[in-house]
């Protein structure tokens, strides 16, 4: 039997004792390298290849015992504490709904929470490495789906037939479609992942993908999705450059990340600033009284609500809006007015603690894919929270939702699905090293690019 076959047989027997299959790749590679080193050492001392192989394997130990030892060490990590946090925030949202808003829409909220929990559980057991194995399909699939919904909403024509999208999309059109932008950060991760060590071309291709997703997000019915992704995408690129992910000079890399961002910003200011609704909205945010019956109306009411709040206890409540509107968009402002600024401070303290724990777990990921996937989802939450808090403090720029707490049926499901996926990374991320996740290349492609080589396949079979 060939030496390598003998070693592989041994390593396979070791891995058969390890129940968690996802850990096999890492363990088998390391064991293979070690036993081969041992074999080569014995050969250098004068033994023949077969004897050297058997001696190196004997030095390793009984395969069953070794495998059992590995099995004790390599287990997925259940994320009970994170589930507890999620449950806590969900209960807080229900508590606020009952106590502050008299149980408005509680049955609908409970239904969508249950749907969200099911989606979260499904995502928890999903294989996050699919992001790395099928990067182009994930990226283009998500981008096309989001664009199609934004573009064709709420109906589209196929020849003489007009197809109305299901009631799901028609009931709360603005909020339902814009929350789809929440999946854009995770869809962006595969692009960054496959750009590893590809120097400036890797960075530029990532920037192009970022620009494409920004354009798609900008085509949404509301601005919030664009603002949300624009911030997160840039942060992900900056992190990648600082981690030397692309293998470029850090200063030049940061400059390259910022330059298109500044250009886009300047373009928006120059083209749209003259009498456009964006300019009016920004002015109203900075000075609500400049447009008191338009964009400034909401900001004025919210700021008056906050001005009447006290440190502890209930303040005066000049509620102008219908309760339903406040229930979804101004939960924090209402809570501040009802329970005082101290309650808000405690809430923010708890949120910051949660954010710290999540960031800590993201940074402990051993693989780049695990790190970027988890940090992208973490940023998806934190930017939502930041935008919602700013919105509720009277700077009514834009927002999506307060994840897990504010009502928002489709937003609840998407947020909980993303949480489940992030917990999947925390649960299984230890078993992966980046080189274990190699993008899948179709055999039938005429052109294929792999490891820096362009291959032209003239023997492609007709499909």
């Amino acid at each position: 039997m060939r030496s390598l076959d003998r070693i592989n047989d041994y390593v396979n027997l070791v891995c058969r004792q390890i129940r968690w299959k996802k850990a096999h790749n890492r363990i088998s590679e390391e064991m293979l390298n070690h036993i081969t080193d041992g074999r080569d050492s014995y050969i250098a001392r004068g033994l023949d290849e077969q004897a050297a192989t058997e001696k190196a394997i004997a030095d390793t130990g009984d395969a069953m015992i070794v495998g059992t030892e590995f099995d004790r060490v390599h287990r997925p990590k259940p994320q009970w504490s994170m589930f507890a946090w999620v449950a806590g925030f969900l209960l807080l949202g229900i508590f606020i709904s009952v106590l502050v808003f008299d149980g408005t829409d509680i049955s609908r909220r409970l239904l969508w929470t249950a749907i969200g929990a099911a989606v979260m559980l499904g995502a928890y057991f999903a294989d996050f490495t699919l992001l790395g194995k099928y990067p182009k399909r994930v990226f283009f699939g998500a981008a096309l789906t989001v664009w199609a919904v934004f573009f064709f909403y709420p109906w589209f024509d196929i020849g003489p037939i007009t197809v109305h999208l299901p009631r799901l999309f028609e009931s709360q059109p603005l909020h339902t479609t814009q929350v789809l932008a929440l999946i854009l950060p995770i869809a962006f991760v595969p692009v960054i992942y496959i750009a590893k060590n590809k120097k400036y071309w890797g960075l530029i291709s990532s920037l192009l993908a970022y620009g494409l997703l920004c354009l798609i997000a900008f085509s949404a019915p509301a601005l919030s999705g664009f603002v949300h992704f624009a911030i997160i995408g840039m942060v992900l690129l900056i992190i990648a450059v600082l981690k030397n992910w692309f293998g470029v000079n850090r200063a030049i890399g940061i400059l390259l990340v910022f330059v298109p961002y500044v250009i886009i910003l300047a373009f928006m200011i120059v083209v749209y600033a003259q009498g456009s609704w964006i300019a009016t909205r920004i002015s109203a945010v900075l000075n609500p009284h400049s447009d008191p019956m338009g964009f400034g109306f909401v900001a004025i009411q919210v700021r008056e609500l906050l001005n009447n709040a006290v440190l502890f206890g209930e303040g005066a409540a000049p509620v102008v809006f219908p309760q339903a509107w406040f229930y979804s968009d101004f939960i924090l402002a209402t809570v501040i007015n009802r329970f005082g600024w101290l309650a808000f401070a405690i809430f923010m303290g708890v949120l910051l603690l949660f954010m710290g724990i999540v960031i800590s777990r993201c940074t402990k990921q051993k693989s780049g894919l695990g790190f970027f996937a988890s940090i992208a989802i973490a940023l998806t939450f934190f930017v939502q929270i930041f935008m919602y808090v700013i919105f509720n403090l009277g700077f009514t720029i834009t927002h999506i939702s307060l994840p897990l707490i504010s009502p928002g049926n489709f937003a609840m499901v998407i947020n909980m699905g993303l949480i489940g996926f992030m917990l999947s990374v925390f649960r299984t991320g230890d078993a992966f090293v980046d080189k274990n996740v190699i993008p899948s290349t179709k055999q039938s492609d005429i052109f294929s690019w792999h490891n820096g080589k362009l291959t032209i396949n003239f023997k492609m079979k007709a499909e």
Partner: protein
Amino acid sequence: MASEKNIISGNTTMLVLKLLETKNMYGYQIIEELSNKSEDVFHLKTGTLYPLLHGLENDGMVNSYDENADNQRVRKYYQLTGKGKGLLEKKQLEWTQYTKAVNLVLEEGESYAFA
């Protein structure tokens, strides 16, 4: 010798961490270094070392990284973390207390033997 090797099995963690304190090493190198430094007294089996290293990595005591070897293979190197240094100091203290206690008993035994 057999009884001394039983003692080492309970302190393998300490010896591995001590080796990593001096420099980052890959698995085969750890086994070779341990054998050389102990003058061939300690021969750590591969099947003992790697589960130990992986367990230490899960607990944050060591980190690992890949590096290309001369023979085109990729070697996984291990390095000690700050948390690992703390564990090493704790283990060394326990060992010092243990050996002191053993020596005290042995000295007592000698004095009784020659009394």
